[in-house]
């Protein structure tokens, strides 16, 4: 079943065309990694899917419906996002970060919301820190809470925008482990990442973006093992050889 479909997605900032013509179909439960060089439009694509950016052209469908026709709050509750910079609410504890949105957006009762939040906080291994404030947490801990916050909304899809790029190397693993465990849970995920080993291990499909289009896509074996396009080969060899 098709979960998210991008048809001829375009996005410009003024005269600067960032996304030229992006076409992509994501099935339910699929885990997709998006790779590509800096400035190729990966973040912009994710932000368009979440409507943090208004597309300049084309259509985005969620379960066959044009997302511009959906209730924005409800849609975003179903299609969550995890940011490179975490974006936890600085005025709330870790637990409250996961509870407040459930109460305000989904209308859940506090008891229920807390129970759900605690479950996911446990799942990301952060139970000891439920009452900590974001500024008291390390980057990896913040990102795990951010993931728990997204999960607490019981989303169908989570978009990850370079979830480990702002982390010190020793914390990358703890966050990737959490994402890996989610990949097996049936959640639909689109992960923009520079962690090639991770992309290879967890994805059903890898997308290579270049110059505002999806230049090549395929299974990890195909894309990493036998890339067709010269640009893809160039990118991968640059990446793998440092």
């Amino acid at each position: 079943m098709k979960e998210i479909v991008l048809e001829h997605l375009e996005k410009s900032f003024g005269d600067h065309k960032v996304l030229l013509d992006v076409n992509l179909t994501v099935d339910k439960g699929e885990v997709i990694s998006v790779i590509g060089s800096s400035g190729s439009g990966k973040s912009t694509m994710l932000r368009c899917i979440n409507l943090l950016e208004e597309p300049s052209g084309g259509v985005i469908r969620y379960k066959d419906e044009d997302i511009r026709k959906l209730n924005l709050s409800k849609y975003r509750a179903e299609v969550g996002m995890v940011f490179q910079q975490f974006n936890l609410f600085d005025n709330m504890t870790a637990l409250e970060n996961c509870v407040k949105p459930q109460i305000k957006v989904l209308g859940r009762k506090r008891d229920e919301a807390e129970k759900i939040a605690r479950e996911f906080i446990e799942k990301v291994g952060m139970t000891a820190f439920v009452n900590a404030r974001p500024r008291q947490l390390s980057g990896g801990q913040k990102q795990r809470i951010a993931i728990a916050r997204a999960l607490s909304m019981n989303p169908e899809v989570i978009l990850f925008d370079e979830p480990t790029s702002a982390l010190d190397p020793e914390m990358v693993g703890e966050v990737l482990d959490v994402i890996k465990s989610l990949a097996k849970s049936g959640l639909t995920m689109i992960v923009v990442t520079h962690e090639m080993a991770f992309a290879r291990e967890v994805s059903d499909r890898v997308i290579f973006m270049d110059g505002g289009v999806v230049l090549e896509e395929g299974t990890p074996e195909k894309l990493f093992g036998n890339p067709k396009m010269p640009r893809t080969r160039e990118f991968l060899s640059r990446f793998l050889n440092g």
Partner: protein
Amino acid sequence: MTFFIQIWEILKEFYPFLLKGIGMTLLISLIGTVAGLVIGLLTGIIRTTPFSKNKLLRVIHKIVNGIIAVYIEIFRGTPMMVQAMVIFWGYAFMNDGQTLPLIPAGIFIVSINTGAYMAEIVRGGIISIDKGQFEGAYSVGMTHWQAMLYVVVPQVMRNILPSVSNEFVINIKDTSVLNVIGVAELYFMAGKIIYINLEIFQTYTIVCVLYFIMTFSVTRILRLFEKKLNGRENYTICGSQSDPAAEIHIKEEAK
């Protein structure tokens, strides 16, 4: 020595006047500051909200923004004493000479004047909050209004608290201009006392000291309050990132 005796005599004889004046000054400046903050929050939120895609709403929003900008410019660019006269006598002019009741008029003038300053303070506070706070809120489905209410404004309030305290102190001093319309605040009371005893220097010395005591204690109390607010968040936690056994449970914060 006679000076101190005279001071003592004034205090003894006129303390009910002075206390009443202090009470009125504190009442008007406190309510004026709070109401000004509310005006600042409302205008700040309106001015930092992105324009709607709906054409009609966008036009209305732009007009409202324009009105707010004019309000801010006028009230920051003219003396409160003149504003007091224009509002008070303007009302009388338009209502066949009937004047506003004094205390509400004083509160209104201080509020609307403070609001113009608070508008800029709050807007600065909102703009200085990281854009990521909004995006985090949007990403879980919060509306712009919810993001403001639950995520941004609480952070803004904490950040602008020193500026708000400062406005309060300014208001304690500046309510003295309300004597021009006859509000019975401390400075006005001094005039009444002098009318009876003719001891101008002695009376104003007392009033001067009283103003200082008010501003000094308010500043100290608010600074203590700020410290308390910040202190609660600043304690560091320990706990190793790699070794879960070293994690330390953080005590529930006092609510």
